[in-house]
């Protein structure tokens, strides 16, 4: 959801950044399993990346802040498997399959996983959409607080910036996070001055660049 606690940019008092020396890729076997199960079901077609972002954000705020990254993935994956009727809470509790209905897709072959992990598979769509903005255009980000998933961070709303780059056409997360309808939109990198975002006491030299879908923007 839009203004959930996952939207952390600019918050204070979240704690110190703790760096672990010689950190392993996974700390426990359950992290390996959560990671690989998520990738395998994602790549098999059970859900889209934006959908698991949504279910992770829908965790209760205190739980979100007090759990680790792969616990977020686990919560998000379980929520999606239930939502998609792949399995039931009863099956999750027992660890045993109890019925055969529900969403079924062929398991992802390891060759397909290997291919996806090592080859460019562009996420942009080949839609004939004219970009509304060009490099150098001044834009105003919408003061939007929709009651659904979105990817415009709260600190970057209702502010003025400049189009730095045209990226490509991608599917708008606001609808993609619900499995569709597909809404192809241009994505721009938008440059903001720190003073615009954080006020006159912020650095006069520094800038923040945020990836923005076109419908997050209007002409300044």
């Amino acid at each position, binding site marked *: 959801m839009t203004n959930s606690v996952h939207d952390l940019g600019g918050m204070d008092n979240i704690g110190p950044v703790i760096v672990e020396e010689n950190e392993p890729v996974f700390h426990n076997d359950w992290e390996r399993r959560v990671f690989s199960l998520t990738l395998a079901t994602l790549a098999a077609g059970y859900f889209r990346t934006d959908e698991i972002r949504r279910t*992770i954000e829908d965790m209760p705020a205190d739980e979100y802040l007090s759990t680790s990254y792969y616990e977020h993935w686990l919560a998000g994956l379980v929520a999606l*498997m239930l939502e998609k009727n792949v399995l039931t809470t009863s099956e999750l509790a027992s660890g045993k399959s109890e019925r055969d209905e529900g969403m*079924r897709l062929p398991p992802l072959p390891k060759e397909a996983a290997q291919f996806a992990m090592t080859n460019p598979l562009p996420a942009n769509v080949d839609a004939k959409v004219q970009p509304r903005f060009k490099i150098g255009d001044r834009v105003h980000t919408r003061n939007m607080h929709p009651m659904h998933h979105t990817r415009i961070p709260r600190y970057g709303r209702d502010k003025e910036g400049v189009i730095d780059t045209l990226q490509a056409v991608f599917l708008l997360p606001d609808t993609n996070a619900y499995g569709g309808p597909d809404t192809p939109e241009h994505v721009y990198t938008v440059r903001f001055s720190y003073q615009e975002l954080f006020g006159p006491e912020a650095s006069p030299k520094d800038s923040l660049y945020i990836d923005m879908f076109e419908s997050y923007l209007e002409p300044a």
Partner: protein
Amino acid sequence: MSEHDHSAPLPDVELRVRALEAVLKEKGLVDEATLDTVIDHYENKVGPHIGAQVVARAWTDPDFKARLLADGSATIAEIGHAGLEGTHMAVKENTAQVHNLVVCTLCSCYPWSTLGLPPTWYKSAPYRARAVRDPRGLLEDFGVKLDDDVEVRVWDSTAEQRYLVLPARPDGTDGMSVDELSELVTRDAMIGTGIVAPPA
């Protein structure tokens, strides 16, 4: 963060993962060989050494560097490093005037195919909050002290594009090979929380 003592009762999270995996497998929805392939790839194949090769090559090949900065995706793919969370790439160059820092405030987007999976601190709430709020203070905590006249550019990776920082080549590296140079390049330097130190 430490390994669980297997004589003690399993914590709730491990039990839930086991149950989830068991049900998905019993239903025939996931394949063990695929899970192993995925884990092996991210645990053993990809990592910051790939990004370090890209950086070292950019330091030694002006034409490659120009193409890398102009079109990160195509240039990195051309030398065989593409894949999930790394197909759309933008490379940002650190110079004497500009320091780049990458964050994903809304989740933890990261260029998997060039840097591997992100470290815990990159995915943590404190980093995501502070990288945009106080990048200079954060950088100092990472040991990077910037002059006031250096411009900081923070990249909040909220969409499909992933960012790689091209660190400045340190002094004292004239004549070093691509492989030698790549040994100097750290993961943090390619996120922007570190700089590449001259050879010891």
